[in-house]
Structure formats: C-alpha cells, structure tokens
C-alpha cells in the first residue's frame, strides 16, 4: 500500500488484460472495453507516480485529461459501432473490413 511497485504491478496486469481483449475479441464493443481497461492502467500509473513523486499534481491533471479523452472516444466509437450495425447487421470487427461497397 505504501510501495510504488504494487500499483505498477496491478496496472501492468490491467494493461495486459486490456491488450488481450483488444487482440482476441470479435465484438466491437468488447474491443472498446479492452481499450477502457488499457486507459485505466495508464491512469493508475500517472496517479501512482504523482503520489510517490512528492505529491506532484501534474499527474492528476494528466489523468483528468485521459478520462476526458476516454469519454469522447467512447461516444464517437459507439456512434461508429451503431452505424456499422445498421449497414452490415453485425458488429464483428473481422467482418467490417471493407472500405467501401
């Protein structure tokens, strides 16, 4: 709890779980959930380094920006996913590989 390493290990595990989801999931929304896990791992690192670097607030600001970017990304990605579903009737990312009809 007072060791930087513990937080870094937790974040490393979260990051690799997220990459696993991004690499193996077929559903577009599940891939998005993997991306959220990766962003959370990065955020945890930012805040941990901020806490153990003499309570420097710059890390907090950066993680705040990451959270805002994640919100924007989720909104646009879900709009794209719903559009793909309306056109192709599937959200399998392997099937949605064509650039135009």
């Amino acid at each position: 709890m007072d060791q930087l390493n513990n937080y870094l290990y937790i974040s490393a595990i979260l990051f690799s779980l997220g990459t696993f989801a991004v690499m193996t999931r077929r559903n577009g929304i599940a891939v998005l959930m993997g991306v959220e896990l990766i962003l959370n791992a990065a955020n945890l690192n930012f805040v941990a380094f901020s806490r153990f670097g003499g309570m420097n607030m710059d890390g907090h600001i950066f993680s705040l920006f990451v959270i805002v970017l994640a919100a924007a990304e989720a909104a646009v990605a879900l709009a794209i996913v719903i559009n793909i579903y309306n056109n192709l009737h599937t959200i399998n990312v392997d099937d949605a590989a064509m650039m135009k009809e």
Partner: protein
Amino acid sequence: MPLAEIVFWLLAAFTIISASFVVLNNQLLYSAIALLFALFGVAGLYIFLWADFIAGIQLLVYIGGINVLIIFGIMLTNKISSVRLSQTNVQQGVGAVIALWLMILISLVISKTPWLQIDSSEPSGTVHAIGTLLLSKYLLPFEAISLLLLGALIGAALLSREAT
C-alpha cells in the same frame, strides 16, 4: 497486518478478478457489468493514492457515463434471436502468448528498476491544487480539450443520425 493493508490487497484482487472477468466472459452484458466493478476497484485504488478528486471523477465519468454508454451500445446492437457465436476470434492462442509476454516484460522492468520514492504527507484535499493548475499552468490544454469535447459531441451526433 493493519486494516488498511488488508483493504488494499482485497481491492487489488477485486479489480484484477473483475478485469479478467471482462476479458474472458462469453456473455457481453456480463462483461459490461464486470467492467463496472473493475472501474470501481480502480477508483478505490485512487483513494489509496490520495487522489480523491480523480476517484470522484472516475465514478462520475467512467461508471456513470462511459459504462452506461457501453451497456446502451450492447443493447442496441444485440439481436435476441441471433445465434450465439463464440466471442473470441482465432487469434486467441497468439493473443494470450503476447499478452502474457507483455505482462512478464513489464513486471521485469518494474522489479529491476530502482524507483525513486519521495515521502510526502497526505494533503487535506486535491481539488484546490487541481483547480489552480487547470486555470494557470494548463489553461491552453484545458481549452483545447473543451474544443475536442465539442467536436466529439457534434461528430457523434452526426454519425449516429439517420441518413436523409
């Protein structure tokens, strides 16, 4: 072992188990619910790191916003009558090897590096410092990200509306 330590390890185990549930579960809606618990655990870890404001924002934006959006997306794109297919593609073995390799590599780097740790006392709150920094040192990124949010709002509305 003090109580705070026990709570910390419980929280860490809770976060990691929920995250693996997100990744490995075959039912998409269960994955989304597990993601809610994983985000909740990360918010708890933020509190252990004295980041009370970030923990609050995590609860508000991630759990209250992004996760609800994801559940909406799942419900809008799931056909109830459709055949249940496997949720994972053929790259499962390769993906597992790469993810495991990444985890071992990062863990090695973490354990080998002599991290500098500065001891500091717990602040009474972080909101004041964050607010001051946002409107002085980080004013330009703050304005840029507000423009980005506006762009994302318009873009999402434009993408998801019916073609006329």
